[in-house]
């Protein structure tokens, strides 16, 4: 090797030996880099070419979206062996959703959080849910005295309970934060995430004042027989690893006219849901007749999730 003149660098002396050594070191170095990055290659081989080049949800044509939905459905069926359908639910014209919660009758049973967990195909080991129920101390609305990990009969003495989920703000800070429009507000007020577009920077999670957003720190684990087969592209389909997710007011149900899962699970009827544009809706009656309040009103986020006390 040293006999040859591999390539001539314009410096004086010792060119051949040094250059050869350097070339050797460079080869070794490259090999080392390749070895170090090998796990990435394993991961990359699991990626899907079509998904990689997939456009933003709102730029997809009807046909393109149909192809994607078919593919997602097919994959989910293959993976779970259940008759999964991944649909695309569009907002209903003339509907803007709002939610109200009666703090006087909420007993803190966490049935809503549990229903959310099941309905939205949440990761089982972390018992993930879009709803966190705070056990609050009577005498104020002070989250500093709140506790989410209570584990004793409810309602406790001198406690009241405050379930918190996405407030579907009219002025959502998470949407402004996103650098790539992977999260946006739809015409019915629901803030959604395109799981196939999100890059997982988690700026929205930092921006949300209500701890409403969740990140998929790993691929969500749901046993196949527990998978909810009624899925939607923007809501409860099983999320990929490394992207954000959030409460969508169960748009796969509510955009079909049904109640969100958390409302149906509530044993006391503390939850009121409906179309805020319909003057005869229950939610309108609550807003007009109860003294409702929103969380962190001073931030100007204009939540569409209202709380009220009866007594």
């Amino acid at each position, binding site marked *: 090797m040293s006999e040859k003149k591999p390539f001539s*660098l314009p410096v004086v002396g010792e060119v051949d030996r040094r250059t050869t050594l350097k070339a050797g070191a460079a080869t070794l170095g490259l090999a080392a880099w390749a070895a170090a*990055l090998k796990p990435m290659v394993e991961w990359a081989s699991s990626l899907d070419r079509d998904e990689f080049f997939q456009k933003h949800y709102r730029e997809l044509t009807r046909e393109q979206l149909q192809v994607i939905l078919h593919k997602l459905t097919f994959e989910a069926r293959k993976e779970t062996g259940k008759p999964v359908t991944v649909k695309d639910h569009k907002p209903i014209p003339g509907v803007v959703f709002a939610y109200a919660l009666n703090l006087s009758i909420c007993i803190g049973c966490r049935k809503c959080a549990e229903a959310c967990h099941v309905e939205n195909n949440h990761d089982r080991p972390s018992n993930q849910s879009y709803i966190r129920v705070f056990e609050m101390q009577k005498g104020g609305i002070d989250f500093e005295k709140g506790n989410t990990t209570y584990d004793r009969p409810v309602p406790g003495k001198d406690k009241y309970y405050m379930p918190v989920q996405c407030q579907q703000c009219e002025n959502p800070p998470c949407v402004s*934060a996103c650098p*790539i429009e992977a999260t946006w507000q739809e015409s019915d007020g629901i803030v959604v995430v395109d799981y196939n577009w999100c890059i997982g920077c988690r700026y929205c999670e*930092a921006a949300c004042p209500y701890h409403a957003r969740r*990140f998929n720190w790993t691929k969500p684990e749901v046993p196949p027989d527990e998978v909810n087969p009624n899925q939607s592209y923007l809501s409860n389909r099983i999320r990929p690893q*490394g992207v954000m997710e959030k409460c969508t007011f169960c748009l796969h149900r509510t955009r079909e006219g049904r109640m969100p899962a958390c409302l149906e699970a509530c044993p006391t009827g503390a939850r009121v849901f409906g179309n805020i544009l319909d003057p005869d809706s229950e939610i309108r009656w609550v807003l007009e007749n109860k003294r409702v309040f929103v969380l962190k009103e001073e931030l100007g986020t204009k939540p569409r999730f209202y709380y009220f006390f009866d007594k």
Partner: protein
Amino acid sequence: MSTTPLPALSYLRFLRQSLHVATEGGWVFYTWMFVLTAVALVGANAWAVQVRDGMIRTNMTDHVSWGLYIANFTFCVGLAAGGVMMVIPAYLYDDHEMHDVVIIGELLAIAAIVMSTLSVVVDLGRPDRFWHMIPGIGKFNWPISMLTWDIIVLNGYLLINLHVVGYLLYMRFLGRKPNPIWYIPFVYLSIFWAISIHTVTAFLYCGLGGRPFWNTALLAPRFLASAFVSGPAFILLVMRVVRLGSDLPIQPGPSRLLVQIIRVAAAINLLMLFSELFTLFYAGGSHLASAKYLFFGDHGKYGLVPWIWSAVVLNLVGTVLFFTPAAIQRSKTRLVACLCVIVGIWIEKGMGLIIPGFIPSTLHEVVEYSPSLTEWKVTAGIWAFGLLILTAMLRVAVAVFTDEMKLTEATELTPATEMP
């Protein structure tokens, strides 16, 4: 340019010689580069595993959703902005001695920007979707999202510095006098731009109404003040290494000036930190929660207390040392002072500012955070990689400025170009 027969060829030669010089040195140099490469490899591997297994490899949670990576990102942006403190005296005040070494500051800026960009990339859950951020083919939420502003200013700053440094080195390599039209406007732009990168980075945080600990107008000025301490301090260290490890003549003047700058900036930084803390603690209320947790612990949790008090002590000691007469000389005191403030500010801006923004959470849950081994490895890897390219670039710059590397007839295959 027209006088050069084949500019493309001589530029290729410049690149090839740069590559050659950058990999040329004594055993200290090789050991240093070897160690840095090894650490960078460890970091790359840790990152690859993290991408494969998910961010579960980090200790971040939905409560503390940014950690060591973004902390390090913030510091590195400051480091990059700090380089401007050589550019301002050199170009605005025509300090000739500073002018001779200003390239060190610009090279540091390049390396620091690379480090901050890497820190963001490793923080992404889906780095494969990187192209979604590219304006034109992706969806760029500009001007609404502050993160898009940050992408613009950081890449802009990188390009400006690459251009200025590359142009000056190449001209020197050719033995030609640089044409001011081709770099002076960019130098002035870079001064403005250096301020902007750290301001925009502060706006990332202070623009979030839901995070009272960050939501203060003083954040951007504080970022700048601390950047003008850590940046020059880092440059002082680099200059020391370059002076001892090469033939590049470095006058004592620039270092003295940098120490003066540090004195002012450190004092301002401490003053602003103090007024921030006064506002928080005297007024109290729920805005105090993070600061209370940070400095004294809260709800029986004390995770950040050792960090912040280390930072306070290091910053105070460093600042005091910089005010001693010995710091003006090329002394050990100066080195210690530099190390103190660099580490102190790294903690203050990272573990002391990014992390407490999340503790307690927006709904006042206290979930603690300390970086996982993966995070430490990746961060060390980023630093090693940054130092690697900084060393290589310095090596080339020194070679060009000491005329070790230049386009001469001896090395020339094409006819010689004009010499001044």
